[in-house]
């Protein structure tokens, strides 16, 4: 019997987050194959609805990676991104869904491991909690 691979969606800003991902790839760092990357101009562009839609359409875990908060390319974009993630997390928690399934990370473009670590951590969370369906999730 083959193990089902979880679905993890990562929204990454095309500035520091994607730079970190590119640097990680070039440095030979690996991240879990269950992670799908959605590139966005800025993590502040990620709307709560985007995050919920990802879950609605099959994701088991969702994360956003933006610039460092005091070094955001668009000044306050990653702060906005974090607020959206927190808002959706509280909505999901209200509905009895594990809040660990959604997370915000910050990465510097020169930090080769930041993106890979975030991606692997969320893949680990998705595997530990199981699929977002009846019978899945923490007991």
């Amino acid at each position, binding site marked *: 019997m083959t193990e089902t691979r979880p679905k993890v969606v990562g929204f990454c800003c095309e500035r520091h987050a994607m730079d970190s991902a590119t640097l990680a790839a070039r440095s030979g760092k690996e991240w879990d194959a269950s992670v799908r990357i959605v590139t966005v101009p800025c993590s502040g562009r990620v709307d709560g609805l985007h995050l919920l839609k990802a879950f609605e359409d099959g994701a088991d875990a969702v994360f956003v990676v933006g610039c460092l908060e005091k070094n955001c390319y668009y000044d306050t974009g990653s702060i906005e991104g974090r607020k959206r993630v927190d808002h959706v997390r509280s909505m999901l928690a209200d*509905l009895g869904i594990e809040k660990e399934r959604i997370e915000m990370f910050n990465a510097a473009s020169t930090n080769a491991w930041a993106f890979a670590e975030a991606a692997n951590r969320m893949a680990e969370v998705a595997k530990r909690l199981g699929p977002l*369906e009846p019978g899945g999730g923490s007991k």
Partner: protein
Amino acid sequence: MIVAKRKPMGDIAKMVAPYKKVAVIGCRSCVAICLAGGEKEVKMTVSALKVRNRKEGREQQFEALVVERQCEKEWVKEVEDKVKDADLVLSMACSLGAQTIADMYPEKIVFPGLDTGFFGVPEEQGVWSEKCVGCGNCIIHLTGGICPVARCAKSMLNGPCGGSSNGHCEVNLEIECAWYAIHERLRLQKRLDLIEAVMPPKDWSTGHAGGRRTYVREDARLTQHQKKGKEGAQ
């Protein structure tokens, strides 16, 4: 504007759980401005409910709709087909919108998705505060444009009380003392004589204590003949 906030998602999920077809209807007026029941909030609520259903394996159909003003029958008519087709209407408008739909379609079950709070204004992005209680007898021409009925915890008409301290209210030190604010405003306007005038007891018969209120403008009402003509045209 009317300020409301969304009920906790867990409460909404429990309310809608027994129904197969749910029409979630928002409003583009006040509740859209206070980020509680506009188009985006309706879509997010529906999406969150679908995520919950995915986790629980529940089959439900949701219709996300928004009308211009849910408290006016003419706008609600635009979604009449969807309302009639649904097992449940979850109104994401203020209680007025929810009650308008419930009155128009008495056979339909209408639940509130929001908790209606107060008459207020946006103070800054993401912050709304109460400014009026709808007492039906406005006196802010005597109080520098600040309503003591809404903004004083004791609704005092002759203040401040002994609990006012450094411009703040004893009920909560984060609340500005309304009568301190009135004093400062009247001082700015050089009308401090008003603060010394004793205000008589308020006529509360115009307020909610007298039961449900109705305002009528006879010159704007339609006669029976006009109503028949309008119905015929529709």
